[in-house]
């Protein structure tokens, strides 16, 4: 019973953060702030949603015994979470660097320290 409550809470917060990422892509003015919305919010939402899947499948695994088919679902969901956690910050860093070097300026920026570092 309490596991179901935790699972529903995780699903609700995860879906809310993914919706905030989708709306933030439309509300922010330039690629850097859109990167802020589109990467951090989806990473946090992914942690909670895949965590809900892992909690539910572990409870089924414990209920069905050691040779249940839920063990494969648990381990593969954890591997997918690790893949997201490794690749998402790296790709956002690459996008930010590529956007700055291709000449897109931040909207309404006052200080741009990376401009002085240009070789």
């Amino acid at each position, binding site marked *: 019973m309490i596991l179901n409550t935790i699972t529903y809470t995780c699903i609700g917060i995860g*879906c809310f953060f993914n919706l905030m990422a989708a709306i933030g892509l439309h509300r922010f003015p330039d690629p850097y702030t859109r990167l802020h919305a589109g990467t951090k919010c989806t990473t946090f939402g992914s942690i909670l949603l895949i965590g809900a899947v892992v909690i539910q499948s572990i409870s089924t695994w414990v209920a069905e015994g050691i040779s249940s088919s839920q063990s494969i*679902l648990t381990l593969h969901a954890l591997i997918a979470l690790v893949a*997201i956690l490794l690749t998402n910050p790296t790709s956002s860093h690459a996008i930010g660097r590529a956007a700055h070097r291709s000449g897109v300026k931040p909207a309404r920026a006052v200080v741009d320290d990376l401009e002085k570092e240009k070789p």
Partner: protein
Amino acid sequence: MWLPAAIFLAVCILIVLVRLFLGPTQPDRLVGLDTLNTIVVVTMVILGAAFEEVIYVDVGIVYALLSFVTTLFIAKYIEKGKF
């Protein structure tokens, strides 16, 4: 309980697709593509839990790693102007 969450994430994917088509500059479209890839991976894991099929989760893992390589290559293309 999993299927409404998957439908909700599909609506989020449609909202992100609008930014992917509208984006005024190239980095805007790339940010939209990166966000869309993450939401698609989460949707595949949710669908795997909904239909009790592990193969969907495996598809999600492979999609995450391949979309990472794709994003890095497109970022390099935007940075230099050539591959």
